[in-house]
Protein backbone atom coordinates (compact mmCIF):
# COMPACT_ATOMS: atom_id res chain seq x y z
CA UNK A 1 0.00 0.00 0.00
CA UNK A 2 2.81 2.39 0.91
CA UNK A 3 4.47 1.62 -2.38
CA UNK A 4 1.37 2.56 -4.38
CA UNK A 5 0.97 5.79 -2.43
CA UNK A 6 4.55 6.81 -3.09
CA UNK A 7 4.12 5.98 -6.76
CA UNK A 8 1.00 8.11 -7.01
CA UNK A 9 2.77 11.02 -5.30
CA UNK A 10 5.67 10.73 -7.73
CA UNK A 11 3.33 10.72 -10.70
CA UNK A 12 1.64 13.85 -9.32
CA UNK A 13 4.94 15.65 -8.81
CA UNK A 14 6.21 14.78 -12.27
CA UNK A 15 3.11 15.51 -14.32
CA UNK A 16 0.59 17.57 -12.40
CA UNK A 17 2.69 20.01 -10.36
CA UNK A 18 4.39 21.83 -13.27
CA UNK A 19 1.04 22.22 -14.96
CA UNK A 20 -0.37 23.77 -11.83
CA UNK A 21 2.56 26.19 -11.52
CA UNK A 22 2.22 27.24 -15.15
CA UNK A 23 -1.55 26.86 -15.25
CA UNK A 24 -2.27 30.56 -15.80
CA UNK A 25 0.75 31.40 -17.94
CA UNK A 26 -0.13 32.71 -21.35
CA UNK A 27 2.96 31.13 -22.88
CA UNK A 28 4.66 27.82 -22.40
CA UNK A 29 8.17 26.65 -22.88
CA UNK A 30 9.06 26.36 -26.55
CA UNK A 31 6.59 28.94 -27.80
CA UNK A 32 8.00 31.21 -30.51
CA UNK A 33 7.31 34.87 -29.91
CA UNK A 34 8.02 38.37 -31.19
CA UNK A 35 8.94 41.15 -28.78
CA UNK A 36 6.85 44.27 -29.02
CA UNK A 37 6.19 46.89 -26.32
CA UNK A 38 3.37 49.38 -26.73
CA UNK A 39 2.29 51.27 -29.80
CA UNK A 40 3.74 54.46 -28.35
CA UNK A 41 7.00 52.84 -27.37
CA UNK A 42 7.51 49.43 -28.99
CA UNK A 43 11.12 48.79 -27.72
CA UNK A 44 11.38 46.07 -25.07
CA UNK A 45 13.69 45.77 -22.08
CA UNK A 46 15.29 42.34 -21.61
CA UNK A 47 16.40 41.87 -18.00
CA UNK A 48 19.10 39.58 -16.70
CA UNK A 49 16.90 38.51 -13.77
CA UNK A 50 13.17 38.16 -13.34
CA UNK A 51 13.49 39.83 -9.95
CA UNK A 52 15.03 42.94 -11.54
CA UNK A 53 12.23 42.85 -14.08
CA UNK A 54 9.78 42.86 -11.18
CA UNK A 55 11.68 45.60 -9.34
CA UNK A 56 11.68 47.79 -12.43
CA UNK A 57 7.93 47.36 -13.00
CA UNK A 58 7.04 47.93 -9.37
CA UNK A 59 9.75 50.38 -8.38
CA UNK A 60 10.22 54.11 -8.44
CA UNK A 61 11.97 56.23 -11.02
CA UNK A 62 14.88 56.81 -8.63
CA UNK A 63 15.50 53.06 -8.41
CA UNK A 64 15.48 52.84 -12.17
CA UNK A 65 19.06 54.21 -12.58
CA UNK A 66 20.49 51.41 -10.47
CA UNK A 67 18.60 48.75 -12.41
CA UNK A 68 19.17 49.98 -15.94
CA UNK A 69 22.69 48.48 -16.40
CA UNK A 70 21.09 45.04 -15.99
CA UNK A 71 18.85 45.46 -19.04
CA UNK A 72 19.37 45.49 -22.75
CA UNK A 73 17.01 47.12 -25.21
CA UNK A 74 15.56 44.94 -27.92
CA UNK A 75 14.08 46.47 -31.04
CA UNK A 76 10.45 45.70 -31.78
CA UNK A 77 10.02 42.59 -33.87
CA UNK A 78 12.92 40.76 -32.30
CA UNK A 79 12.13 37.05 -32.34
CA UNK A 80 12.59 34.82 -29.34
CA UNK A 81 11.64 31.47 -27.90
CA UNK A 82 10.02 31.00 -24.51
CA UNK A 83 12.12 29.05 -22.07
CA UNK A 84 10.08 29.58 -18.93
CA UNK A 85 7.08 31.46 -17.61
CA UNK A 86 6.17 32.60 -14.11
CA UNK A 87 2.54 33.65 -13.98
CA UNK A 88 1.47 36.85 -12.28
CA UNK A 89 4.99 37.42 -11.07
CA UNK A 90 5.16 41.13 -11.81
CA UNK A 91 3.00 43.47 -9.77
CA UNK A 92 2.79 47.11 -10.75
CA UNK A 93 3.32 49.69 -8.02
CA UNK A 94 0.17 51.61 -8.93
CA UNK A 95 -2.14 49.14 -10.67
CA UNK A 96 -3.88 46.05 -9.42
CA UNK A 97 -3.28 43.95 -12.51
CA UNK A 98 -0.32 41.59 -12.62
CA UNK A 99 1.86 40.41 -15.48
CA UNK A 100 3.78 37.25 -16.28
CA UNK A 101 7.57 37.09 -16.27
CA UNK A 102 8.71 35.33 -19.45
CA UNK A 103 12.17 33.77 -19.74
CA UNK A 104 13.28 34.04 -23.39
CA UNK A 105 16.19 33.30 -25.69
CA UNK A 106 16.68 35.77 -28.54
CA UNK A 107 16.63 34.19 -31.98
CA UNK A 108 17.76 37.05 -34.25
CA UNK A 109 19.29 40.50 -34.40
CA UNK A 110 22.21 41.95 -32.48
CA UNK A 111 21.13 40.14 -29.30
CA UNK A 112 20.87 36.72 -30.98
CA UNK A 113 21.41 33.89 -28.51
CA UNK A 114 21.14 36.14 -25.45
CA UNK A 115 18.85 34.99 -22.64
CA UNK A 116 16.78 37.20 -20.38
CA UNK A 117 13.39 38.05 -18.91
CA UNK A 118 10.62 40.16 -20.42
CA UNK A 119 7.07 41.13 -19.45
CA UNK A 120 4.32 38.89 -20.76
CA UNK A 121 2.57 41.98 -22.14
CA UNK A 122 5.66 42.75 -24.29
CA UNK A 123 5.33 39.52 -26.28
CA UNK A 124 3.28 38.56 -29.31
CA UNK A 125 2.87 34.89 -30.01
CA UNK A 126 3.75 33.59 -33.43
CA UNK A 127 1.86 30.39 -32.75
CA UNK A 128 -1.13 31.17 -30.55
CA UNK A 129 -2.05 28.52 -28.01
Amino acid at each position, binding site marked *: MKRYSALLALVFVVFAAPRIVHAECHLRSGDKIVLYGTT*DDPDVFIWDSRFRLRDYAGGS*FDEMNAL*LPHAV*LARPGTRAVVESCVSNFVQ*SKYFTNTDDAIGVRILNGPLNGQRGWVLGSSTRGIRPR
Partner: protein
Amino acid sequence: MTAFLAIAVVVAVQGAFATRASLAQTFARQSDIVQAQLALEEMRRLQIDAESSVRGYSLTRDPFYVQQYANVEAQFDQHAATVRATLSGAGLTGAVRSLDDYIALQRNWRTKIADPLLAHPGKDVTLIDKRNKAFTDFENRSVQLIRTSLADANDRLARTAQEQVNVNAYSRAFWLIVLGLLAILLNGFRSRLVTELEEERTTTETLQRAFRSEAAPLPNCEVGSAYLAASSHLAVGGDVFDVYRLSDTLALIFIADVSGKGVDAAVLTAFIKFTIRGIALRRRDPGAMLAEFNTAFSQTVENPYLFVSMFVGVLDTETLALRYASAGHDSAFIRRSSGMMQQLAVTGPVLGVMEEPFETKTLHLEDMDTLVLATDGLTEARDRSGKQLQEAGAMRLIGASNAQPQLLADEVVAKVRTLGGNELRDDLAVLAIRVHEAEADDEEV
Protein backbone atom coordinates in the same frame (compact mmCIF):
# COMPACT_ATOMS: atom_id res chain seq x y z
CA MET B 1 -58.69 70.56 -3.33
CA THR B 2 -57.44 73.58 -5.24
CA ALA B 3 -54.67 73.87 -2.66
CA PHE B 4 -53.69 70.23 -3.25
CA LEU B 5 -53.62 70.77 -6.99
CA ALA B 6 -51.55 73.92 -6.55
CA ILE B 7 -49.11 72.08 -4.29
CA ALA B 8 -48.91 69.22 -6.80
CA VAL B 9 -48.10 71.65 -9.61
CA VAL B 10 -45.46 73.37 -7.46
CA VAL B 11 -43.92 70.02 -6.53
CA ALA B 12 -43.82 68.91 -10.17
CA VAL B 13 -42.37 72.18 -11.47
CA GLN B 14 -39.87 72.49 -8.64
CA GLY B 15 -38.81 68.88 -9.21
CA ALA B 16 -38.32 69.49 -12.92
CA PHE B 17 -36.18 72.55 -12.27
CA ALA B 18 -34.19 70.81 -9.54
CA THR B 19 -33.50 67.86 -11.82
CA ARG B 20 -32.55 70.16 -14.66
CA ALA B 21 -30.14 72.16 -12.48
CA SER B 22 -28.61 69.02 -11.05
CA LEU B 23 -28.14 67.43 -14.47
CA ALA B 24 -26.75 70.63 -15.95
CA GLN B 25 -24.16 70.77 -13.18
CA THR B 26 -23.26 67.12 -13.65
CA PHE B 27 -22.96 67.45 -17.42
CA ALA B 28 -20.77 70.53 -17.02
CA ARG B 29 -18.41 68.59 -14.77
CA GLN B 30 -18.46 65.64 -17.18
CA SER B 31 -17.61 68.02 -20.01
CA ASP B 32 -14.63 69.33 -18.01
CA ILE B 33 -13.42 65.79 -17.46
CA VAL B 34 -13.75 64.93 -21.15
CA GLN B 35 -11.77 68.07 -21.98
CA ALA B 36 -9.08 66.99 -19.54
CA GLN B 37 -9.00 63.52 -21.09
CA LEU B 38 -8.54 65.03 -24.54
CA ALA B 39 -5.85 67.39 -23.29
CA LEU B 40 -4.04 64.49 -21.61
CA GLU B 41 -4.06 62.46 -24.84
CA GLU B 42 -2.75 65.52 -26.65
CA MET B 43 0.09 65.75 -24.11
CA ARG B 44 0.88 62.09 -24.73
CA ARG B 45 0.96 62.73 -28.49
CA LEU B 46 3.20 65.75 -28.02
CA GLN B 47 5.53 63.69 -25.83
CA ILE B 48 5.91 61.13 -28.65
CA ASP B 49 6.38 63.96 -31.16
CA ALA B 50 9.15 65.37 -29.00
CA GLU B 51 10.90 62.00 -28.81
CA SER B 52 10.50 61.54 -32.56
CA SER B 53 11.94 65.03 -33.16
CA VAL B 54 15.01 64.25 -31.05
CA ARG B 55 15.52 60.91 -32.83
CA GLY B 56 15.01 62.60 -36.19
CA TYR B 57 17.64 65.22 -35.44
CA SER B 58 20.01 62.58 -34.09
CA LEU B 59 19.76 60.62 -37.34
CA THR B 60 19.56 63.47 -39.92
CA ARG B 61 20.87 66.55 -38.07
CA ASP B 62 18.18 68.53 -39.85
CA PRO B 63 17.48 71.76 -37.84
CA PHE B 64 13.79 71.35 -38.71
CA TYR B 65 13.57 68.72 -35.96
CA VAL B 66 15.04 71.09 -33.40
CA GLN B 67 12.35 73.68 -34.15
CA GLN B 68 9.65 71.01 -34.06
CA TYR B 69 10.97 69.79 -30.71
CA ALA B 70 10.80 73.33 -29.29
CA ASN B 71 7.24 73.79 -30.56
CA VAL B 72 5.85 70.56 -29.18
CA GLU B 73 7.49 71.07 -25.80
CA ALA B 74 5.88 74.53 -25.53
CA GLN B 75 2.47 73.04 -26.41
CA PHE B 76 3.06 70.25 -23.92
CA ASP B 77 3.42 72.79 -21.11
CA GLN B 78 0.26 74.61 -22.19
CA HIS B 79 -1.82 71.44 -22.16
CA ALA B 80 -0.29 70.42 -18.86
CA ALA B 81 -1.58 73.66 -17.33
CA THR B 82 -5.06 72.99 -18.74
CA VAL B 83 -5.20 69.45 -17.42
CA ARG B 84 -3.86 70.53 -14.05
CA ALA B 85 -6.55 73.19 -13.68
CA THR B 86 -9.30 70.70 -14.53
CA LEU B 87 -8.01 68.03 -12.19
CA SER B 88 -7.65 70.52 -9.35
CA GLY B 89 -11.15 71.88 -10.02
CA ALA B 90 -12.59 68.37 -9.93
CA GLY B 91 -10.82 67.66 -6.64
CA LEU B 92 -8.83 64.74 -8.13
CA THR B 93 -5.78 65.17 -5.89
CA GLY B 94 -4.34 61.76 -6.75
CA ALA B 95 -4.51 62.57 -10.44
CA VAL B 96 -2.88 65.94 -9.79
CA ARG B 97 0.05 64.18 -8.10
CA SER B 98 0.36 61.79 -11.07
CA LEU B 99 0.29 64.75 -13.46
CA ASP B 100 3.02 66.46 -11.48
CA ASP B 101 5.07 63.24 -11.69
CA TYR B 102 4.43 63.12 -15.43
CA ILE B 103 5.49 66.74 -15.95
CA ALA B 104 8.58 66.26 -13.77
CA LEU B 105 9.56 63.16 -15.75
CA GLN B 106 9.13 65.00 -19.03
CA ARG B 107 11.31 67.88 -17.83
CA ASN B 108 13.84 65.36 -16.54
CA TRP B 109 13.79 63.69 -19.95
CA ARG B 110 14.51 67.04 -21.62
CA THR B 111 17.61 67.71 -19.53
CA LYS B 112 18.95 64.17 -19.41
CA ILE B 113 17.97 62.77 -22.80
CA ALA B 114 16.80 65.38 -25.27
CA ASP B 115 19.30 68.19 -24.59
CA PRO B 116 22.43 65.92 -24.67
CA LEU B 117 21.23 64.30 -27.92
CA LEU B 118 20.53 67.67 -29.52
CA ALA B 119 23.94 68.91 -28.38
CA HIS B 120 25.85 65.79 -29.57
CA PRO B 121 23.77 64.10 -32.24
CA GLY B 122 26.52 61.72 -33.31
CA LYS B 123 27.15 60.28 -29.87
CA ASP B 124 26.60 56.61 -29.12
CA VAL B 125 22.99 56.47 -28.15
CA THR B 126 22.74 52.99 -26.66
CA LEU B 127 22.60 54.15 -23.06
CA ILE B 128 20.50 57.15 -23.97
CA ASP B 129 18.01 54.87 -25.72
CA LYS B 130 17.70 52.73 -22.61
CA ARG B 131 17.14 55.75 -20.43
CA ASN B 132 14.71 57.15 -22.97
CA LYS B 133 12.80 53.88 -22.82
CA ALA B 134 12.78 54.01 -19.02
CA PHE B 135 11.46 57.58 -19.04
CA THR B 136 8.73 56.56 -21.42
CA ASP B 137 7.74 53.60 -19.27
CA PHE B 138 7.43 55.74 -16.16
CA GLU B 139 5.61 58.49 -18.00
CA ASN B 140 3.20 55.87 -19.31
CA ARG B 141 2.48 54.74 -15.77
CA SER B 142 1.68 58.32 -14.70
CA VAL B 143 -0.53 58.87 -17.72
CA GLN B 144 -2.30 55.58 -17.08
CA LEU B 145 -3.00 56.63 -13.50
CA ILE B 146 -4.44 59.94 -14.66
CA ARG B 147 -6.56 58.20 -17.29
CA THR B 148 -7.92 55.80 -14.72
CA SER B 149 -8.64 58.61 -12.29
CA LEU B 150 -10.50 60.63 -14.96
CA ALA B 151 -12.46 57.59 -16.14
CA ASP B 152 -13.46 56.80 -12.55
CA ALA B 153 -14.53 60.40 -11.99
CA ASN B 154 -16.56 60.27 -15.19
CA ASP B 155 -18.23 57.03 -14.11
CA ARG B 156 -18.99 58.48 -10.68
CA LEU B 157 -20.60 61.53 -12.28
CA ALA B 158 -22.70 59.35 -14.57
CA ARG B 159 -23.83 57.26 -11.62
CA THR B 160 -24.52 60.40 -9.59
CA ALA B 161 -26.58 61.87 -12.42
CA GLN B 162 -28.56 58.66 -12.72
CA GLU B 163 -29.12 58.56 -8.97
CA GLN B 164 -30.21 62.20 -8.95
CA VAL B 165 -32.68 61.56 -11.74
CA ASN B 166 -33.99 58.47 -9.98
CA VAL B 167 -34.31 60.15 -6.59
CA ASN B 168 -36.01 63.19 -8.07
CA ALA B 169 -38.34 61.15 -10.23
CA TYR B 170 -39.30 58.72 -7.48
CA SER B 171 -39.74 61.37 -4.80
CA ARG B 172 -41.78 63.65 -7.08
CA ALA B 173 -43.88 60.73 -8.25
CA PHE B 174 -44.46 59.73 -4.63
CA TRP B 175 -45.58 63.19 -3.57
CA LEU B 176 -47.71 63.64 -6.68
CA ILE B 177 -49.44 60.33 -5.99
CA VAL B 178 -49.96 61.28 -2.33
CA LEU B 179 -51.33 64.70 -3.22
CA GLY B 180 -53.44 63.24 -6.02
CA LEU B 181 -54.94 60.64 -3.70
CA LEU B 182 -55.62 63.28 -1.07
CA ALA B 183 -57.27 65.48 -3.67
CA ILE B 184 -59.39 62.56 -4.87
CA LEU B 185 -60.37 61.66 -1.30
CA LEU B 186 -61.12 65.28 -0.47
CA ASN B 187 -63.12 65.70 -3.64
CA GLY B 188 -65.14 62.58 -2.85
CA PHE B 189 -65.73 63.78 0.70
CA ARG B 190 -66.70 67.24 -0.53
CA SER B 191 -69.06 65.82 -3.15
CA ARG B 192 -70.70 63.62 -0.55
CA LEU B 193 -71.03 66.53 1.82
CA VAL B 194 -72.52 68.76 -0.85
CA THR B 195 -74.93 66.02 -1.87
CA GLU B 196 -76.01 65.51 1.73
CA LEU B 197 -76.48 69.23 2.26
CA GLU B 198 -78.46 69.51 -0.94
CA GLU B 199 -80.63 66.56 0.03
CA GLU B 200 -81.25 68.07 3.44
CA ARG B 201 -82.02 71.42 1.92
CA THR B 202 -84.36 69.90 -0.63
CA THR B 203 -86.15 67.95 2.11
CA THR B 204 -86.38 71.03 4.26
CA GLU B 205 -87.68 73.21 1.47
CA THR B 206 -90.22 70.55 0.56
CA LEU B 207 -91.39 70.48 4.15
CA GLN B 208 -91.51 74.23 4.30
CA ARG B 209 -93.45 74.48 1.10
CA ALA B 210 -95.91 71.97 2.51
CA PHE B 211 -96.32 73.57 5.91
CA ARG B 212 -95.55 77.19 5.71
CA SER B 213 -97.20 80.26 4.83
CA GLU B 214 -100.61 80.25 3.45
CA ALA B 215 -102.35 83.48 2.88
CA ALA B 216 -106.03 82.80 2.44
CA PRO B 217 -108.14 85.56 0.89
CA LEU B 218 -109.87 87.63 3.50
CA PRO B 219 -112.83 89.90 3.09
CA ASN B 220 -111.95 93.60 3.08
CA CYS B 221 -108.27 92.77 2.98
CA GLU B 222 -105.47 92.63 0.47
CA VAL B 223 -102.83 90.11 1.42
CA GLY B 224 -99.30 89.95 0.09
CA SER B 225 -96.41 87.77 1.14
CA ALA B 226 -92.85 86.97 0.15
CA TYR B 227 -90.25 84.54 1.29
CA LEU B 228 -86.55 84.67 0.64
CA ALA B 229 -84.34 81.74 1.58
CA ALA B 230 -80.87 82.32 2.89
CA SER B 231 -77.90 81.84 0.55
CA SER B 232 -77.77 78.29 -0.79
CA HIS B 233 -74.73 77.13 1.15
CA LEU B 234 -76.56 77.71 4.43
CA ALA B 235 -79.29 75.48 5.82
CA VAL B 236 -82.83 76.77 5.57
CA GLY B 237 -84.43 78.23 8.65
CA GLY B 238 -87.75 77.91 10.44
CA ASP B 239 -89.78 80.93 9.37
CA VAL B 240 -93.51 80.45 9.07
CA PHE B 241 -96.59 82.64 8.68
CA ASP B 242 -100.26 81.91 8.26
CA VAL B 243 -103.48 83.72 7.39
CA TYR B 244 -106.41 81.55 8.34
CA ARG B 245 -110.08 82.28 8.40
CA LEU B 246 -111.57 81.40 11.76
CA SER B 247 -115.07 82.57 10.82
CA ASP B 248 -116.80 84.81 8.36
CA THR B 249 -115.41 87.88 10.04
CA LEU B 250 -112.42 86.68 12.04
CA ALA B 251 -109.04 85.79 10.68
CA LEU B 252 -106.05 84.30 12.39
CA ILE B 253 -102.81 85.99 11.42
CA PHE B 254 -99.51 84.86 12.75
CA ILE B 255 -95.85 84.84 11.92
CA ALA B 256 -93.15 82.91 13.78
CA ASP B 257 -89.46 82.39 13.66
CA VAL B 258 -87.97 79.19 15.07
CA SER B 259 -84.43 79.34 16.37
CA GLY B 260 -82.07 77.02 14.57
CA LYS B 261 -82.04 75.77 11.03
CA GLY B 262 -82.42 72.59 9.06
CA VAL B 263 -84.95 69.80 9.06
CA ASP B 264 -85.73 70.12 12.78
CA ALA B 265 -86.66 73.78 12.40
CA ALA B 266 -88.68 73.08 9.26
CA VAL B 267 -90.65 70.29 10.91
CA LEU B 268 -91.29 72.56 13.86
CA THR B 269 -92.95 75.08 11.57
CA ALA B 270 -95.59 72.45 10.80
CA PHE B 271 -96.10 71.87 14.47
CA ILE B 272 -96.50 75.63 15.04
CA LYS B 273 -98.85 76.14 12.16
CA PHE B 274 -101.32 73.41 12.97
CA THR B 275 -101.07 73.76 16.73
CA ILE B 276 -101.86 77.48 16.57
CA ARG B 277 -104.69 76.82 14.16
CA GLY B 278 -106.07 74.19 16.51
CA ILE B 279 -105.82 76.48 19.52
CA ALA B 280 -107.34 79.36 17.58
CA LEU B 281 -110.42 77.30 16.82
CA ARG B 282 -111.08 77.06 20.54
CA ARG B 283 -109.74 80.38 21.79
CA ARG B 284 -110.03 83.87 20.37
CA ASP B 285 -107.63 85.63 22.69
CA PRO B 286 -104.13 85.82 21.17
CA GLY B 287 -102.42 86.02 24.57
CA ALA B 288 -104.22 82.85 25.67
CA MET B 289 -103.24 81.21 22.40
CA LEU B 290 -99.60 81.95 23.00
CA ALA B 291 -99.78 80.75 26.60
CA GLU B 292 -101.37 77.47 25.56
CA PHE B 293 -98.96 77.05 22.72
CA ASN B 294 -96.06 77.77 25.06
CA THR B 295 -97.17 74.92 27.31
CA ALA B 296 -97.62 72.56 24.38
CA PHE B 297 -94.28 73.58 22.94
CA SER B 298 -92.40 73.02 26.19
CA GLN B 299 -94.03 69.60 26.63
CA THR B 300 -93.51 68.54 23.04
CA VAL B 301 -90.14 69.85 22.02
CA GLU B 302 -87.38 68.23 24.04
CA ASN B 303 -84.55 70.28 22.59
CA PRO B 304 -83.83 72.97 25.23
CA TYR B 305 -82.03 75.11 22.68
CA LEU B 306 -85.08 75.57 20.47
CA PHE B 307 -87.34 78.55 21.04
CA VAL B 308 -89.81 80.50 18.98
CA SER B 309 -90.63 84.16 18.57
CA MET B 310 -94.19 84.61 17.40
CA PHE B 311 -96.76 87.28 16.64
CA VAL B 312 -100.40 86.18 16.75
CA GLY B 313 -103.25 88.42 15.74
CA VAL B 314 -106.98 87.97 15.34
CA LEU B 315 -108.35 90.46 12.88
CA ASP B 316 -111.99 91.34 12.68
CA THR B 317 -112.43 92.10 9.03
CA GLU B 318 -115.70 93.90 9.68
CA THR B 319 -114.60 96.26 12.45
CA LEU B 320 -110.90 96.25 11.52
CA ALA B 321 -110.07 95.61 15.17
CA LEU B 322 -106.82 93.73 15.59
CA ARG B 323 -106.24 91.87 18.82
CA TYR B 324 -102.70 90.65 19.07
CA ALA B 325 -100.03 89.24 21.30
CA SER B 326 -96.31 89.09 20.62
CA ALA B 327 -93.96 86.51 22.11
CA GLY B 328 -90.64 88.30 21.68
CA HIS B 329 -91.42 89.06 18.05
CA ASP B 330 -90.47 92.67 17.40
CA SER B 331 -90.80 92.74 13.61
CA ALA B 332 -94.46 93.71 13.54
CA PHE B 333 -95.42 97.08 12.14
CA ILE B 334 -98.42 99.12 11.11
CA ARG B 335 -98.07 101.30 8.06
CA ARG B 336 -100.79 103.86 8.37
CA SER B 337 -102.60 105.11 5.31
CA SER B 338 -100.84 108.39 5.92
CA GLY B 339 -97.48 106.66 5.51
CA MET B 340 -96.61 106.88 9.20
CA MET B 341 -94.95 103.77 10.64
CA GLN B 342 -95.74 102.19 14.02
CA GLN B 343 -94.03 99.25 15.67
CA LEU B 344 -96.29 96.85 17.58
CA ALA B 345 -95.10 96.18 21.09
CA VAL B 346 -93.82 92.84 22.34
CA THR B 347 -96.23 91.50 24.97
CA GLY B 348 -94.29 88.54 26.38
CA PRO B 349 -91.12 86.50 26.22
CA VAL B 350 -90.17 84.14 23.42
CA LEU B 351 -91.87 80.75 23.52
CA GLY B 352 -90.11 77.70 24.90
CA VAL B 353 -88.15 79.58 27.55
CA MET B 354 -90.44 80.12 30.52
CA GLU B 355 -94.08 79.86 31.56
CA GLU B 356 -95.28 83.46 31.46
CA PRO B 357 -98.66 85.08 30.70
CA PHE B 358 -98.91 86.94 27.42
CA GLU B 359 -100.75 90.21 27.31
CA THR B 360 -103.25 90.79 24.55
CA LYS B 361 -103.52 94.20 23.03
CA THR B 362 -106.14 95.65 20.75
CA LEU B 363 -105.52 98.01 17.92
CA HIS B 364 -108.09 99.62 15.63
CA LEU B 365 -106.95 99.82 12.06
CA GLU B 366 -108.13 102.46 9.69
CA ASP B 367 -109.02 102.13 6.06
CA MET B 368 -105.91 101.46 3.93
CA ASP B 369 -103.76 100.76 6.96
CA THR B 370 -101.33 97.90 6.41
CA LEU B 371 -100.18 95.35 8.94
CA VAL B 372 -96.62 94.29 8.05
CA LEU B 373 -95.16 91.25 9.77
CA ALA B 374 -91.64 89.95 9.13
CA THR B 375 -89.13 87.58 10.63
CA ASP B 376 -85.77 88.64 12.05
CA GLY B 377 -84.23 88.28 8.59
CA LEU B 378 -85.49 91.84 8.13
CA THR B 379 -84.26 93.61 11.25
CA GLU B 380 -81.03 91.65 11.37
CA ALA B 381 -80.25 92.15 7.69
CA ARG B 382 -76.77 93.61 7.27
CA ASP B 383 -75.39 95.92 4.70
CA ARG B 384 -72.00 95.25 3.09
CA SER B 385 -70.20 96.97 5.96
CA GLY B 386 -71.87 94.58 8.42
CA LYS B 387 -74.25 97.10 9.98
CA GLN B 388 -77.67 95.72 10.94
CA LEU B 389 -80.86 97.28 9.66
CA GLN B 390 -82.60 97.17 13.09
CA GLU B 391 -86.25 98.14 13.69
CA ALA B 392 -85.80 101.77 12.69
CA GLY B 393 -84.20 100.81 9.40
CA ALA B 394 -86.89 98.23 8.78
CA MET B 395 -89.63 100.81 9.28
CA ARG B 396 -87.90 103.24 6.92
CA LEU B 397 -87.59 100.52 4.33
CA ILE B 398 -91.27 99.50 4.68
CA GLY B 399 -92.44 103.10 4.67
CA ALA B 400 -90.60 103.77 1.43
CA SER B 401 -92.03 100.73 -0.31
CA ASN B 402 -95.05 100.42 -2.54
CA ALA B 403 -98.36 100.53 -0.66
CA GLN B 404 -99.92 97.56 -2.44
CA PRO B 405 -99.29 94.57 -0.08
CA GLN B 406 -97.84 92.10 -2.57
CA LEU B 407 -95.65 94.76 -4.16
CA LEU B 408 -94.64 95.91 -0.68
CA ALA B 409 -93.58 92.40 0.36
CA ASP B 410 -91.67 91.83 -2.87
CA GLU B 411 -89.97 95.20 -2.64
CA VAL B 412 -88.90 94.69 0.97
CA VAL B 413 -87.35 91.33 0.11
CA ALA B 414 -85.61 92.77 -2.95
CA LYS B 415 -84.19 95.69 -0.95
CA VAL B 416 -82.87 93.37 1.76
CA ARG B 417 -81.22 91.23 -0.88
CA THR B 418 -79.63 94.27 -2.50
CA LEU B 419 -78.54 95.61 0.87
CA GLY B 420 -76.46 92.52 1.59
CA GLY B 421 -74.97 92.29 -1.88
CA ASN B 422 -77.15 89.30 -2.78
CA GLU B 423 -75.83 87.46 0.26
CA LEU B 424 -78.61 86.66 2.74
CA ARG B 425 -77.49 85.20 6.06
CA ASP B 426 -80.98 84.29 7.31
CA ASP B 427 -84.32 83.45 5.81
CA LEU B 428 -86.78 86.29 5.49
CA ALA B 429 -90.57 86.04 5.50
CA VAL B 430 -92.78 89.10 4.94
CA LEU B 431 -96.54 89.19 5.33
CA ALA B 432 -98.45 92.37 4.49
CA ILE B 433 -102.23 92.84 4.98
CA ARG B 434 -103.90 96.05 3.93
CA VAL B 435 -107.41 96.53 5.32
CA HIS B 436 -110.37 98.29 3.82
CA GLU B 437 -113.46 99.52 5.54
CA ALA B 438 -116.35 97.24 4.93
CA GLU B 439 -118.70 98.57 2.32
CA ALA B 440 -122.23 99.17 3.55
CA ASP B 441 -124.74 96.53 2.45
CA ASP B 442 -126.98 97.65 -0.36
CA GLU B 443 -129.98 96.58 1.65
CA GLU B 444 -129.04 98.94 4.49
CA VAL B 445 -128.55 101.77 2.05
